[in-house]
């Protein structure tokens, strides 16, 4: 089994050009109803294109305790987490897969608490993103409305984790569903699966958006200035060479992006000085 380190050293199957792609779906609902069925539908249309190995992960089947907010994963590394549960098992599943799907129902106009807690527990990856080149999609099921904002949140979380995020889908699944609605839902999932499949087959390192580029430059400059060798984030950034590089990974930036990057470095430095 490939572990985090192997993955970071580029030993993941994605860079080896293996044809069989592994897709994993995290389901943040305790029931096996609409959210599960939406993912089932997605699996069906993904399987139609072949070469995909699909796996379900029901978060309810894993022991995942509430994040304590101790910040040890930021300061000393994720191995220092005081909670001993199935977090690493779940993470290993992401490290060894090529595509990831986060599916959640709409509970109180946000992701389900189970999904939220999972995100809380892997929040150190927001600081040290690593899932570059992997494809990610969010699926939200809603009763009547409110799912759009959740989809936006989950998609931006995927970007924070380093994934190539494709536009997900927000499905209205309040029962009873008419046949016409059912057909429309299936169509929507099919479209999403095509988007997902395309990105999955390419699995390339994309040029960052302006926002992501600026975020990277600003955060690396503030980490460089505020933190020191005692901090794991700092050591990690140094080891990766992220204090000097253009972006998290090797990618050629155009002239405009390059100058925006330089400007972000400069303004972050000034912000730090004036703090």
């Amino acid at each position, binding site marked *: 089994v490939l572990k985090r380190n192997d993955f970071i050293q580029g030993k993941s199957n994605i860079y080896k050009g293996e044809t069989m792609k592994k897709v994993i779906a995290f389901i943040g609902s305790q029931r096996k109803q609409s959210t599960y069925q939406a993912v089932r539908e997605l699996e069906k249309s993904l399987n139609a294109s072949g070469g995909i190995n699909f796996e379900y992960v029901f978060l309810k089947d894993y022991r995942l305790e509430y994040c304590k907010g101790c910040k040890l994963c930021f300061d000393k590394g994720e191995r220092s987490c005081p909670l001993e549960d199935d977090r690493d098992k779940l993470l290993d599943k992401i490290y060894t897969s090529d595509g990831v799907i986060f599916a959640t129902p709409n509970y*109180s106009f946000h992701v389900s608490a189970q999904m939220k807690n999972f995100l809380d527990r892997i929040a150190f990856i927001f600081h040290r993103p690593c899932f570059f080149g992997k494809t990610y999609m969010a699926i939200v099921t809603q009763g009547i409305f409110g799912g759009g904002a959740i989809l936006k949140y989950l998609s931006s979380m995927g970007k924070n984790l380093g994934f190539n995020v494709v536009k997900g889908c927000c499905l209205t699944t309040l029962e009873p569903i008419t046949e016409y609605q059912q057909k429309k839902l299936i169509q929507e999932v099919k479209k999403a699966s095509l988007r997902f499949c395309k990105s999955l087959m390419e699995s390339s390192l994309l040029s960052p958006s302006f926002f992501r580029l600026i975020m990277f430059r600003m955060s690396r400059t503030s980490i460089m200035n505020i933190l020191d060798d005692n901090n794991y984030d700092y050591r990690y950034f140094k080891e990766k060479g992220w204090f000097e590089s253009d972006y998290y990974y090797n990618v050629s930036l155009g002239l405009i992006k390059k100058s925006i990057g330089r400007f972000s470095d400069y303004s972050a430095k000034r912000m730090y000085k004036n703090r």
Partner: protein
Amino acid sequence: VKIVIVHGSPRKGNTYKATKLFKEEMQKQGEIEFVDFFLPKDMPDFCCGCMTCFLKGEEKCPHADYTMPILEHMVSADALIFTTPVFALSLSGCMKSFLDHYAYIFIVHRARTEMFKKKAFIISSTVGAGAKAAMKTISTSLKYWGVNRIYTYSFTTFGDGWDNMKAAKKEKSESQIRKKAAGFYKETASGKRHSPYLHIRIMYLISKFIIKKYTDDSSLDKKYWIEKGWYEREKNPFKY
């Protein structure tokens, strides 16, 4: 004056210290009874989405031992305070879990009339960003509960922690909290009822229509609305 505080942080860090200051300041203003709930201790389980609360009644919720006493306290209180740190650019998982359990008192289901005159305050702290999003999630829920007015306060620590913050910055935060606390006490003690949020009013009218037209006579929601008399003329929770 009775105030229920739901602490959404598993550790007693920056958010807790700010809340403590807020409490002290309110107590200076007048006699207050605080009831504290600490998450996740007081709501350890995730909502299982079984819909029992919607269909069969909240007392049949598998976690009713936790949810019912807290709701009773919240209903009988004059004001509510919610606190959350920022985890993953949003509210903490345990606060989310808490909110998930109370979807049945949304205005589209069975809103508690007592909520419509309550004020609420949300306190949040963050290292860098995300406090606005965290508070927004809580305030959305509260608005749908029918809470009359929601006030918020958040501060950014930049990783320093409440105790190590630069003196000038800390003083500024403290004075802001004091001001907000005094204002919130005045607001609560006066018992003044502001005009309800517009979109909540609209939601109320839409739900009134949908429940009357599309739900079964045996549904708990419909029975509740009829029992409350919200289908009668000149009677609605905003006026209660």
